[in-house]
């Protein structure tokens, strides 16, 4: 039986890029399940996945999307699950999230929040918090420690910045062509650039999310280990400006 890939999707870390690539090469809802409300009115729940027949569950190669948590693993007791997660540099991720939010609000005709408003509504350490929920690790004080203990055992831990190097290995392992996926959303065509990340802004965002910064730093080490284990040649990180800086 093939491995089942759990693609945990922290918002604004490149999950849509992976999803779109899978959608190009696999049959949606048969070979892979994207649990989010993508082309359907609501997200899939654990109950809806549980309602799939054993044959349907056996056919699945991956589960992904924001609603995916480790709890779904109990629906696949016979499968060996390979967990995959990508983490993005926290300041760049936050600005990307803001731009996404603004674009969505503008499309709906709603007022666009200032970044300060957006930031004040955001939780501290949103990456850590989100990943903690995915993994069922919600005890606040020890959450980062517990997450790191789980990450060291995952099949692939990467950073969004290295997705071009890691994604082909992921696709190859899933039996797809090991291609570098085209970035979704990264061109700014669909998501408008309301804010550009500056060094001062990055400092401010990081100061408010120290655990996310620590998590990201640790993930860079785990990413290097993932690459070494999978025999991936790291590609040099392009020296591009952070986030959506013009030019």
């Amino acid at each position, binding site marked *: 039986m093939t491995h089942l890939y759990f693609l945990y999707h922290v918002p604004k870390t490149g999950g849509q890029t992976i999803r779109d690539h899978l959608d190009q090469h696999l049959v949606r809802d048969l070979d892979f399940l994207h649990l989010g409300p993508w082309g359907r009115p609501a997200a899939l729940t654990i109950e809806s996945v549980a309602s799939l027949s054993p044959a349907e569950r056996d056919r699945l190669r991956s589960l992904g999307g924001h609603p995916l948590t480790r709890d779904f693993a109990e629906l696949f007791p016979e499968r060996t699950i390979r967990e995959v997660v990508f983490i993005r*540099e926290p*300041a*760049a991720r936050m600005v990307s999230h803001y731009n996404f939010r603004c674009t969505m609000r503008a499309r709906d005709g709603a007022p666009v929040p200032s970044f300060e408003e957006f930031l004040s509504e955001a939780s501290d350490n949103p990456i850590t918090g989100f990943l903690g929920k995915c993994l069922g690790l919600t005890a606040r*004080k*020890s*959450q*980062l*420690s*517990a*997450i*790191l*203990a*789980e*990450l*060291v055992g995952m099949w692939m831990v990467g*950073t969004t*910045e290295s997705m071009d190097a890691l994604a082909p290995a992921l696709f190859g392992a899933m039996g797809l062509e090991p291609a570098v996926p085209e970035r979704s959303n990264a061109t700014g065509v669909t998501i408008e650039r309301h804010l550009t990340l500056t*060094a001062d802004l*990055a*400092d401010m965002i*990081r*100061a408010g999310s*120290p*655990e996310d*910064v*620590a*998590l*990201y*730093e*640790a993930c*860079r*080490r*785990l990413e*290097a*280990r993932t690459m*070494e284990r999978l*025999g991936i*040649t*790291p590609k*040099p*990180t392009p*020296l591009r400006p*952070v986030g959506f800086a013009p030019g």
Partner: protein
Amino acid sequence: MRIRHVIPTVGPSAPAELVQAQELTLRSVERALRCVGDGVEVEVRAVRFRDEPIDCEWVTDCPTLDRSVLDLGEFEVTRRLPLLSDVLAALGDPSDYDVAVVTNVDIAVQPLFYELVAEIADEGHDAFSITRRTVQPRFRGSSLARFSTAEGTVHPGHDCFVMSSEIVERLIPCDVALGVRWVARTLLWQLQLNAENYRNFGDLHATFHVGDDRVWTNPKLADYEKWNESQVLALARELVARFGRARVSRLLSVGRFLDAIDAGTEVSAPPARTATVAYGTLPQARVEPRMVFSANSGRAGSGYLASLLDESRTVSAGHERPPQMTGAWTRRIAYEPRMASYTDRLVKVDALRSEVARIPPGRVYADTSHMFVKTFADVVFDEFAHDRLSVVVLRRDPVDVARSFFQLDFLGPRPLPWYDWMIPPTVPESAFPLSLDEVDDQFDLIFGYLVDIENRTSRLRELAPAVTWVDARLEEITQADGARALFEALDVAVPRNLEQTIAGRVNLKERAKSKVEQPVSRGHVEERLGEFLARHRDRRDLAAFVRNHHLEAP
């Protein structure tokens, strides 16, 4: 099999401790030569500067070092350090030997070392690294036999390289200076790329080193390190040309050099022990901030210590800062050999770097978590310069600690989260192991745990003597004089209103104790401690606990 072993030796002008280390090394090599069996020939070559003679008849004297790194660059502090390429040249004609061994002057060998080398080479390994063990750093009063038979601890670095003569012929000369970072890496990379069957032996007891001084972390050697980096960059270029980028990129620690090659620049990023973040926007301190940690058992006043230290205007202190390294980390330390989780636990170092990078210049970082001695002291000691580290060994009357543990039901039967934090003495990796037969009640577990912490602390202290160790007792630092002495010992600013700072800060955990409802009298705990000490009085690993808590030997 013909083995040729090259050791770069030092002369009278070297520091006394290095001369002592060399004496020990040479004595160990002499013993090993006596143990060489039939079919193995060993020649030991001492490569040295001409004016640094060595008094040793049985080595082949090779006064072939005519230059040093000082002839190639300018450095703030003058250190006549030999170049690796010159040391390797002393191996001589590769047709005269089958296997080459290269070690530093302070790496002693076990009696069967050469037999082991021959055996591994016979098994088909054409290049390998044997990592050392680190033994107790006391020269006086310890004989070669005691050092040699000491258990010691595993060291993650590389300091003994063995390779076939064919591989020696293929080595690209590299002018890195010995005694500074990157020397081992340049050899290791070349062995890994050239060998058909390379292996790293990280779990043998074949070589050892006395102490863990880590002279290469000395910030005074920063410009030598820069020199070495420039040589490593040149080597990396040649390796890429010879072996291709894909193969080279898989080597450990090569990333920065490949980045520099791609960018056509020098290696500009700081060494791996300082923070690195994508896009390079975090402050990159060349000299790390000072850091203070604490060795304690828990319920010894570590929370109070953090709040006390944080009152200093030059300290940024916290208690159990994330990631706390509890839970699964604690269990791995409890049930696996320490090194099994070592590389995983380096994530704590990454988190630490991200934290200290944000500390204002001149501030001292402090975390008083009692997890330090259990789950992350080793990675911290391996990754940060020891002269920037302090550890407050915080003790409290063990009767009071044990009573508090019992009242909170730590190490007790209730499903409380103590098991995320504490290592019971009944687990395989306890530093004061007790069998189940030796456990009558919860107090045996509690006392065993407290002794375990004392033993872990002693072990760390021996391994890292260059760290500033400050002994403190809760009973003292809750008084103004004791608190002032602590600040002074740590060389940080004393808070202005020290008396007010001290008042009413000790965390009694009264609410938690009232939930547990497990009161116990102090007299009973005292009595149980006496019984425990009497029962284990013949155990040598109880000595540190008895001594450091000023308990009467039973």
